[in-house]
Each structure stands twice: as C-alpha cells, then as structure tokens.
C-alpha cells in the first residue's frame, strides 16, 4: 500500500514548484499559474489526510471542496485584474507594474 508520507511528499513537491513559479517568473499570468499549483498541493494534502486519518467523517472532503471554490473565485478575479492592467499599461510583466512603488 501507499503510505501517507508519499502523498505528503508529492503535495510538498507541487507546492515548492508553485513557490518557485510565483517568485521567479515575470509574467503575471505565470505567477497566477504558480498560485494555482500551490492551491492544488493544499487540496492533495487535505484529501490525503482525510483518507488516512478520518475516513469515516466526510468533513475532510467538504473542506477540500470549499478550498476549490475559493481557488476558483480567486482565479477569476485575479485574471480580471490582469486583463484590466494590460488594457491600461499594455504590459503584464510584474516588474513594470510599479505605479504605487516608492
């Protein structure tokens, strides 16, 4: 059988790949894709812990479903913001969106 540790390592690897994507990419949409990877890693973690710790109580899966709902809302608003920024500044590179910078 597959130990819980294996699922947690997979989720940790996906999370760290997402962290690298958020911190190292210039394009704002690539940064949003890194955030989606991190959210998916958290969902894997939640479902794995539900399966191995409390499979008799469905609350773990419902928690994961709500995380998915919040991720969907955040992705929609984030992409709307990126599109609005592109319309105004004609760029989506995160370094060039610096109007509020000191």
């Amino acid at each position, binding site marked *: 059988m597959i130990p819980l540790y294996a699922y947690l390592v997979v989720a940790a690897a996906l999370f760290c790949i997402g962290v690298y994507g958020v*911190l190292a990419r210039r394009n704002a949409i690539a940064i949003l894709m890194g955030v989606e990877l991190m959210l998916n890693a958290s969902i894997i973690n939640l479902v794995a812990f539900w399966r191995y710790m409390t499979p008799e109580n469905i609350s773990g899966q419902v928690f994961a479903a709500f995380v998915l709902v919040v991720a969907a809302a955040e992705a929609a608003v984030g992409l709307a913001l990126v599109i609005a920024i592109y319309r105004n500044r004609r760029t989506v590179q995160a370094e060039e969106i610096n109007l509020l910078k000191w």
Partner: protein
Amino acid sequence: MQETIQVIAFIAFTIMTLLPALLLVLSRNLFHSALYLLASLFGVAGLMVLLVAPFLAAIQVLVYMGAIGILIIFGVMLTRGMMKMDHIFNNQQAAAAITAVVLFIALVLTLSPLVDEMDIDPLEKLNVDFTTIDEPPDVGYETVREIGRVIADRNGFVLPFEVASILLTAAMIGAIVVAREDEA
C-alpha cells in the same frame, strides 16, 4: 495484484502531476505553460481518485481544468501582443530556486518517519503518529452520496455551502466590473 496496480497508478499520477508542473515554471512559451497546467491538474484529479474522493476528482476536472484552466488560456490570449518572452525569469530567480528547494527539504524532513526515531519533542507532544500509517481503513460508504447529504443538512454544511455560493456570485460580479471596458 491490486496493490501493484495501485502503486503503478500512484507513480503514474505523480509523474502526471509533477512533470508538467516543472515544465510549466520553466517554459518559455506562456501558452505551453497553460497547457502544462491543464495536464498537472489532471494528475491531481487522478490522485484524488486514488484517495477515494471521486466527487472531488470530478469537480477538479470540471471546475479546475474546465473553467479555471480555460480562463487562464483566455487570459494568456488576451494579454499577448507587445510582450516579448525573451527573459521569462526576473532577477531574483536564483534566490527563488534556493527558497523552493530549502522549503521542500524542510517539509520532507518534518514529515519524515525518521523524525520519530530522532526523538524531536514537538512531534511527540502532538501524540499523532500519522507518518507511519500504511494501511488506511476502508471507506465503507458512498462518498458522493454522503457529500450530497451533508451539504444540505441543517446540522451539516448548508451554511458554508450558501456562503460559498454568495462568494462565487460576488467574485463573478467583481471580475465583470474590473475587466469591463470603460464607457467613455
């Protein structure tokens, strides 16, 4: 036999999740990154099927791949034009790589079964031995039916369910207002 199939499926879905994710953050073409995101999300859905969460796997494919993935592809296509993808990494790329690797090592070491042998106090205080669970108990009920029952149950999750609906409506209205063209 069944165990071998499970292990093979786990390895296959892990590769399906992590390899496109790695290619996503390293790809020079943003549209290829969006497609790699779809592949990675499919791998996550496969892992959920292995973890006896078929409802979540279906929701993952429908919502994450079918809606958010397509939305990201729309975003990629609507913000093209004058951008050149010559330098895809900013000037803190090395620090970001070191941060990601250090974070991964820290997470793996914290969860490792070896930590039990090293007698580190915080994990012993938790009194939970989750790192050595190998054989999970069987899920004896139908998870889809149970989720359906519990999100409509007054003593269940009906209130968070309704609040999530309001959240999605608010996000939709907000996205429309933010991305709307100004009627000048």
